[in-house]
């Protein structure tokens, strides 16, 4: 089982994601350069946080044109898990792999904090080891994490159970307190909070660890099935 962490120019949580997967969870992981063309070797793809292309114009707007994004699309279409964290989430929405968009925080400030989230669904490869309705504390660090989507899409997302995490105390003005959403097939997740920052006791928080463990366990199940 192998994770791939995509490195865009300006990504800066790539190291943290790698560290969480490799040093904390002991799984294989590799960086994948944005110019690469294929992802066949990988089971799960992580689009990390940061400021791809400086987040100029709009967050994730330029990164979505990276060569690797075709492969990410194919990986997702093949039903394999893709997770976009923070800037990764923004890129996935810009690329149309997830619905909606992320706009400037309501208070117009960058917010770095640890906030409580509610796990809204555990029928995804990313949240299988959480209880539905469970409250977990996960760090956030973003200036544009205010999720918006049109009413019709929102309604459909609710019906299909695509809202995965919500904020308990909405920090950024997100519609319906949304912190993380997935696609209809539930194999592509985007979330503004940073689970990779909450994997170790020494950092004072391990609530994010189960997200990675959920992916591993889902992948292990899947590999067994094959």
């Amino acid at each position, binding site marked *: 089982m192998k994770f791939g962490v995509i490195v865009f*120019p*300006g990504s*800066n*949580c790539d*190291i*943290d994601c790698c*560290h*969480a997967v490799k040093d904390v969870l002991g799984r294989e992981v590799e960086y994948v350069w944005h110019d690469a063309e294929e992802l066949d070797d990988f089971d799960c793809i992580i689009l990390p*946080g*940061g*400021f791809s*292309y*400086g*987040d*100029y114009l709009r967050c994730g707007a330029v990164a979505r044109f990276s060569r690797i994004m075709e492969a990410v699309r194919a990986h997702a279409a093949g039903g394999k898990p893709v997770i976009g964290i923070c800037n990764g989430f923004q890129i996935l929405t810009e690329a149309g792999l997830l619905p909606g968009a992320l706009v400037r925080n309501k208070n117009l*400030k*960058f*917010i*770095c*904090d640890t906030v409580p989230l509610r796990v809204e669904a555990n029928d995804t490869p990313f949240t299988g080891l959480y209880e539905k309705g469970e409250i977990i504390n996960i*760090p956030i*660090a973003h*200036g544009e994490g205010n999720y918006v989507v049109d009413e019709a899409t929102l309604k459909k997302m609710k019906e299909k159970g695509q809202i995965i995490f919500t904020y308990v105390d909405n920090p950024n003005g997100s519609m319906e307190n949304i912190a993380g959403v997935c696609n209809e097939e539930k194999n592509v997740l985007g979330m503004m909070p*940073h689970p*990779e*920052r909450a*994997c*170790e006791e*020494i*950092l*004072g928080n391990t609530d994010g660890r189960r997200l990675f463990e959920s992916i591993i366990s889902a992948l292990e199940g899947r590999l067994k099935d094959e």
Partner: protein
Amino acid sequence: MNKPYEAVGLTEKEYEKIIEYLGREPNETELSMYGVMWSEHCSYKHSRALFRHFPTSGKRVLQGPGENAGIIDIGDNLALVMKIESHNHPSAIEPYQGAATGVGGIIRDIFAMGARPVALLNSLRFGDIEKSERVKYLIDGVVAGIAGYGNCMGIPTAAGETYFNSCYDGNPLVNAMCVGIIEHDKIHRGNASGVGNSVMYVGAATGRDGMGGASFASVELTGESEEKKSAVQVGDPFMEKLLMEACLELLVTGSIVGLQDLGAAGLTSACCETAARGEGGMEIDVLKVPRREKGMLPVEVMISESQERMLLIVEKGREDEVKKTVEKWGLHAVTIGRVTDKGRLTVKEGDKTVADVPAYSLDSSGAPEYYREYEEPAYYQELKKFRPETAEEPKDYNKTMMELLTSPNLCSKEWIYKQYDHMVRTCTVVKPGSDAAVLRIRGSKKGIALTVDCNSRYCFLDPRAGSAIAVTEAARNLVCSGARPLAVTDGLNFGSPEKPDRFWQFREAVIGIGEACRELNTPVISGNVSFYNETATQAIYPTPVIGMAGLIEDIDKCCTMHFKDEGDIVILLGKTENELGGSEYLCRIHGIEKGAVPRLNFGLEKKLQAFILSAVNKGFLKSAHDVSDGGLAIALAECCMEKELGIKAELKSQLRTDAVLFSESQSRFVVSCSYETLAELRQFMAKLEIPYEILGRVTGDEFRLDINNKNIVALKVREMKEAWRGAFKCLMT
């Protein structure tokens, strides 16, 4: 009529010195190059002579002052790189970009040494926030600018300090500090060595912006500053991130001989400094320099301070290899010249020589050096005489406590540091909000603790004592975290050195820092001087900001200031004296900024610091916090906030109540331990002859202080916390 040298900020004597160096009159390009290089900002001509007061060497010092940044050994083949830098004037006229480019500049200094930057700190001073909308505008912009740059770089901004005083109304201070980690064998210096090696240029194209920023930073702010507008630039953290990654990748290949950032005085400074440190000479062609604008003159190319540029000295023959690596990061590297041994910096425009001067003569080794006149100002003896006892004692100490907790200088700075990504890189073990930031070093058991400190009111009332206190306070913050203080980087912010009373302040401060650093064995390994922080009507308080780094041998043993559990015993180490002079209490409650500053006894200080350090390492303490601004009562309140735990303390004292609570006597710490370890801790304290007083216990939710069996303060912690946390946001809206 204006003399040509006056236009570039030089004196007649300095002009004569240039003629002496050249054996002829300089041409216009050369004169401008001397003008920027011999500005105070680049040459330290007024301050250099005093730096001999600083201890700059020691067993652990791998690089002292004189390079892009200082380096200190932390064992296991690892070293810590650090430097502080001011961006005061640009931040005063364009707060966002001024602060952002300040952060960008200091980061380049760190990776120019070959180190990966791991933390940013900042020290901010603003005018009276309660009286001025402009101050709010400046804070908003400065904080967003620091956040905008540091967050995008993916370097956690992990600590800082923020103070308000009307002396900063016209002159805010923005000092940024960066810390990096490096392996010994990866250390690089800004050396142009190896005759024939190539001088390559990487990063943003050169434009007309930032023209003469160095000389701009070396004059007082006036209406005319508006004219020098182009001295402010727009930062590009994205470019810098690519530049940083490209440089760090290049350094591993061995193709790079030397590395230098283009900061103040741009190419002129980078070329002459690297040449002077290396083979002595360099020849470059300005036509090869990538430009953003058409029709730039050679002199404009040479002194532009466009951001996000680096100079690489590359081993001859390996230029293509360098280009390739740089291109992978979406950047271009171009060869603009080569290293010579002729001792001259020769600037060509194609075939034409446009400047040709001895390289070292531009550099600080060739710049003039002045011994400024100094004179003790009259206020110094006068203000000292004030007796704090003459201030009326408060009647309701609950009210006084709440007033202090919500005051701009003492309230929580969460509003600021929540805008900084302080967690990226997942190494921040102690986040902003405790005494020092603590970061783990990946792949090692070790950690580092970082802090930046200065009480400028003390430094105004007594620059020598105040500066020494700044150093010891920084060290106290580190030992409370369980770190051994290692080294200092100093950011000296002062008024005009040409005025004898200001220069006296500067001189006293330098001596005070030197003395304290010697006592505490923390050499000064880098620093920055910012003069001319004054307007027609006022100068800032002397503000020598002390950045300090310490080493934690075992990261699992680091400690924070917050009380941990109910029932724990709270102890005050050190002795409270009647020392309200210059205190935050006197200033805030009585509007008085006078009096003698607290005394500092290095013997006691060192004994206590050594004790705290070993007590933390032995695991005796559950929390440790130094007593500083606001005195004992505020220190205790700060320990209660994080976990919303209370305290029940019973103090005994002969002093007046306000002195017991708010005196700012030095060398004091508030610690807590479990009841079970108390006996052992007492033995240990007795053995080391530590003065202490057991204050009471950590309790549920009440903050209760009794003095001589009489209740003085009784407040709910939740209410205190809400007021203290919310105060800054209230001030800003």
